[in-house]
Structure formats: C-alpha cells, structure tokens
C-alpha cells in the first residue's frame, strides 16, 4: 500500500512523471495497450495488403481491349529488385539490433542502428523510385492498362509504408538523441520495430508472388 501511495506523487522513480505512469497502467492481459494496438493495426494491415496482392494477381496479365502497352511483369529487372529486397531484409536486422541496444541502455549504438535502418529504408525507396521511373520511360504509366494500375497501387502502398517507417525511425533517433527516450521506454522502439518488420514481411510476399513467380 505504501508503494501505491508513493506512486501517486507527481515525481516517480527514475525521473518518471504521473503522465508516464498513466500511460503504463497495468492491464487485464498484463500486456501494454500500445503493443496490442500495434499488433491489431498490423493484423488489419494484412487485410489491406491481402486485397491489393489479390487484385494484382487477378489482373496481372490483363491489358484489356481498350488499352494496350506492356505489363509490369514484362519489364521487371529481377537482379535490381533482388538487391533492393536484400537491402530491406538487412534493415530488419539493424532494426532488431537497435531494439536490443536500447534495452541494454547502449544509447549511442541504438542511435547508430536507428539511422542505419532509416538509411537502408531510404535506399530501398530510391530503388523503387528508379524502378517506377524506368517503367514509365518504357511506356508503363499508372493508367496504361488495368495491370499497371494494380501493380503501381500495390507497390506504391508498400512504398508509402516504408516512407512512413523512415519518418518514424528518424523521429525515434531525434528523441533518443535529445534524451527524451531512454531505456525505460525501450518498448516504444520495439513497437516501431514491429511496424518496420511488418513492412519487410509484406515485401517478402510481394517479391515472391509478384516478381519471382512467373
């Protein structure tokens, strides 16, 4: 009881405030609301990408009588996309290293891994921009045919997810650098990491189903 009484004061242990304590209330499940929310979001995002991948698979070879032009599959540069995929895959490693670093209170190392992850994500996005540009120059625009619309919508949505992830990573880096995010809030980095890994597993599916399976 004494602990409860003491914890109601405005300044708690380790410099935590009542605001912090409010946001880490014990829950019925014993799990934090933030983490459950992120997993719920990722579960719902499966539906988004499931529908986009389904749409592409149904329309991948359909050009239509009123439209013409190549399909995306005609223009794929598999070696180039393979390198992009590998870069995104390795960004998952650097992300998980950032999480373990902050859990061990190794803040400098955490900042380094966060920036590395963001940089690898930026390389992936640069590759996607290059791919889209080269496809456009080859005559495959968003409205060229129904197949190209499905392709650009799917890969574009994934690219937006990666871009948002980069923004979150840079924000985390800034917060860690400013001392506003310490080891006691390692779960925040972990939750951002969950999002980043999800973006990676979506690309694992897209790379196999869209690019590699003939």
């Amino acid at each position, binding site marked *: 009881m004494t602990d409860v009484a003491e914890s109601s004061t405005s300044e708690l*242990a380790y410099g935590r405030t009542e605001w912090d304590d409010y946001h880490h209330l014990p829950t019925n499940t014993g799990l934090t609301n933030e983490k459950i929310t992120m997993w719920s979001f990722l579960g719902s995002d499966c539906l988004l990408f499931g529908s986009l991948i389904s749409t592409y698979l149904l329309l991948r070879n359909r050009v239509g009588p009123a439209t013409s032009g190549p399909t995306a599959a005609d223009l794929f540069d598999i070696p180039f996309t393979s390198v992009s995929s590998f870069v995104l895959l390795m960004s998952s490693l650097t992300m998980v290293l950032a999480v373990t670093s902050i859990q061990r209170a190794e803040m400098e190392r955490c900042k380094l891994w966060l920036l590395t992850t963001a940089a690898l994500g930026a390389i992936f996005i640069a590759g996607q921009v290059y791919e889209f540009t080269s496809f456009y120059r080859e005559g495959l625009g968003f409205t060229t045919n129904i197949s190209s619309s499905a392709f650009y919508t799917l890969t574009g949505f994934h690219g937006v997810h990666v871009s948002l992830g980069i923004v979150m990573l840079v924000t985390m880096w800034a917060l860690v650098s400013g001392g506003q995010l310490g080891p006691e809030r390692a779960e925040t980095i972990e939750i951002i990491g969950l999002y980043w890994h999800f973006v990676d597993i979506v690309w694992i599916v897209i790379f196999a189903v869209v690019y590699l399976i003939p």
Partner: protein
Amino acid sequence: METVAASEEEAHEEHHDHGLSDVGYIKIALILGVLTAVEVATYFWDFGILEVPSLLILMVVKFQIVVSYFMHLKFDSKVFTYVFVTGLILACAVFAAMGTSMVFWQNPSGCDLSAFC
C-alpha cells in the same frame, strides 16, 4: 518503492531473456540472406515444376522466421500471435473470396471482368 524498483528490474531482466543475442540475430539474418539467394536463383536456373512450390515454401519460411524472431512472436505473449494470425486468415479469406467471385463464378453469358478491361 524498493518493491516497485525490484519488480521493474525483474521485468527488465525477464525481457532480456526473450529473444536472441545480437549474434543470434545476425545468424538469422544470414539464413534469410541465403534463402533470398535461393529464391533469386530460381529466376536464373530452370527448376521446372518445382519452381512455384519452392518459391512459395521459401516465402513462407522467410515470413515465419522474421515474424518469430525479429518480431519476437516466438517469445512474446500468445495474444499477439492470435491477433496477427486473425488478420492473416482474414487476408487469405479476402484472396479466396476475390478469386472465387471474379474467376470461378463468372457469368455464363459472358466474362464479368471483361467489362472492366
């Protein structure tokens, strides 16, 4: 207050028990890299009838590894697994529904999809 500090410390240590060491994560990433290389190899070499099944199996294995180890589902509460798997099952249901409604259940009088393309 000491009780609170002690329980937080225990929780912190317990958290460290979850997941792998840094070296373990690097090994996982190397495995993922090798699996990706095998995937890409199917583009350069003809795997015949095994190509599509092998690509699908590799995709599922990579997916499972990232979710289990990098996303800690293997070590975390089963609640997260249930939440995520529910989303995955619904996504598969969406795929099945679209496939059946647009491909298998076409109007006998003509192709439904041809109206759009």
